[in-house]
């Protein structure tokens, strides 16, 4: 089995798909990083080629609806799951079938891709919910997050529409980039954190009222709870522990 390694970009992945078709590979594995050893077959590093990528995408556009195309992109954003082989199987099924296969739930790649799409959707939804902006001294509302998947591209529009009258930054600490809205447009940015601001939401850069509203929110969270109905199992199912460290209401008062 040959292993195709691409450069983590979506175009790179599509270039790998092009390669599969170009060389009529059947037993193949696509991934972001070269595996240590490949027992049978070889490792091939794919050059990202926008023209080839576009040809694959155009081909898919003829076979899939917007949702179908999106689900491939979403599976790509599920970067930690490594679903490249599912994506390839889905693409193959789509390209070889005379009719639209998006709802062919008798096909396992279709079922799996839909599962992944749902997972990405859930993570996106979570980030819409779990962002906790902190007002900085520069009058920018900032939050650093560590989502399971690369969902910033999927939440951008939501925040742009909603928080139109304030500057804000949402930063993916895990993937090292973020988005910044400057009251006009949203741009992709990277931040070099200084020693003292590193990671933590330091009071050094917070607006003087920020701590007040954080305390009030914590108080609200506490007071709106009905203690006699405590159900931590349910609580944790909705607010999994891995998100706690970035949630104001789950930090000590």
């Amino acid at each position: 089995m040959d292993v195709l390694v691409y450069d983590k970009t979506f175009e790179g992945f599509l270039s790998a798909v092009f390669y599969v078709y170009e060389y009529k590979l059947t037993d193949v594995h696509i991934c972001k990083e070269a595996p240590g050893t490949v027992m049978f077959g070889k490792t091939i590093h794919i050059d990202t080629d926008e023209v080839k990528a576009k040809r694959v995408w155009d081909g898919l556009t003829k076979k899939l609806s917007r949702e179908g195309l999106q689900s491939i992109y979403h599976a790509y954003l599920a970067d930690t799951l490594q679903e490249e082989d599912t994506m390839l199987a889905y693409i193959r099924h789509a390209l070889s079938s005379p009719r639209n296969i998006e709802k062919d739930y008798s096909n396992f790649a279709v079922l799996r891709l839909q599962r992944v799409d749902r997972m990405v959707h859930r993570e996106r939804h979570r980030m819409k919910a779990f962002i906790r902006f902190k007002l900085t001294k520069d009058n920018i509302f900032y939050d650093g997050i560590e989502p399971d998947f690369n969902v910033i591209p999927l939440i951008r529009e939501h925040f742009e529409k909603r928080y139109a009258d304030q500057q804000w930054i949402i930063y993916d600490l895990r993937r090292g980039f973020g988005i910044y809205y400057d009251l006009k447009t949203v741009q992709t940015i990277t931040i070099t954190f200084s020693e003292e601001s590193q990671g933590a939401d330091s009071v050094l850069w917070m607006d003087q009222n920020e701590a007040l509203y954080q305390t009030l929110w914590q108080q609200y969270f506490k007071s709106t709870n009905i203690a006699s109905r405590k159900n931590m199992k349910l609580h944790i199912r909705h607010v999994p522990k891995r998100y706690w460290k970035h949630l104001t209401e789950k930090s000590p008062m």
Partner: protein
Amino acid sequence: MLFVVNANYFSFMEKIQAKLAILADAAKYDVSCSSSGSTRKNKDKGLGDTGSGICHTYTEDGRCVSLLKILMSNICIYDCAYCVTRRSNDIKRTSFSVDEVVDLTMNFYRRNYIEGLFLSSGIMKNADYTMERMVLIAKKLRTEQNFNGYIHLKSIPGASPDLMHAAGLYADRLSMNIEMPTNEGLRLLAPDKKREDMIVPIRQITNEITQYQDERKVLRKVPTFVPAGQSTQVIVGATGETDRDIMKVASAFYDKFKMKRVYYSGYVPISNDNRLPALGSQVPLLRENRLYQADWLQRFYGFTTDELLPETIPFFDSEIDPKLGWALRNMSLFPLDINKADKSLLLRVPGIGLHSINKIIEGRKFGQLTWDHLKKMGIAMNRAKHFITCAGLSEPTRDLTEMQIKGLILAGSSGKFLLHQKQLSIF
């Protein structure tokens, strides 16, 4: 925005925090948290929009936190037995000023803590005095702050038509809690409240919503009016009404007043008032849960109250959900062939939800579905398998009795308590 000078910072903070503790605590028994049903757009680059219906966090009891849910004041001239805020209860009383509520809402919203405000209040002085201040808060948020987030106002019983109308112009949702499913219950537990004081404003808003919707069809410029509609809440378990009584009342509210939601609030014993179940008696969580399941089945699965609760069975089975209960009473309709059965029938199979039904219907166009496919679709096979047939081998043995099936399903189900939340993965 509040301007805080450092020297006063702590006393200011403590004052607001103390008020918030009291007024959030007193508001928490209202179970509604919905922030959906309205699609208010962000206007002129202002703050906020609605339509996402996001739960920003969940309380430790597992409920969605979507809105800043507070009382404006817990001063009240009434004495409803089931309510912590009632006049005769010896508690600390406090009120937010109009600007304090506006400021809290804006600052919570800007930090992405909430989708908006859910404001209710004890009755200060009289209905209109209270309602007027609540409307003023909504008005300030909309007109001075250009706030386009969600606003839910819980109207005060007996508020005048003018104030109700004004509320409708600023709020996304209005609610009026009917509280007691029966008239006798209301007379016993909320002697100051008259049913008419609640029904008249509800009816007014129902009519005005229709009127505005009609006008909007002709003129696009007509402003929105209560775009997320009305809701109400009934308290369950404080008096002797049956589940059937409650479901009948709820159905009437959905049909007659086009309510968007009816909420069921399991009575939490908060007082030793001898009109009520004693302190420490069990909160009817499971009962509340069954009512939500039935409500859902009526709104989305085509069931009627009479089907779920025939006259001879006025209460839900605590062991099994209402859909399974119905199916076991109607075994002659099963098993259904997954590859052929009509959607309206598939909707009635225990363990199969709306999502899966759509997948089945799409999937079977491509070929015969097998048990394996059904499992991959996320269907609760432990329940569904007794009521369906499909292609493939591993079919379970048939010809079990109703009691045997119930036993098998109960033996195989776990984590039943997780079902409590009104989430819908259960069917």
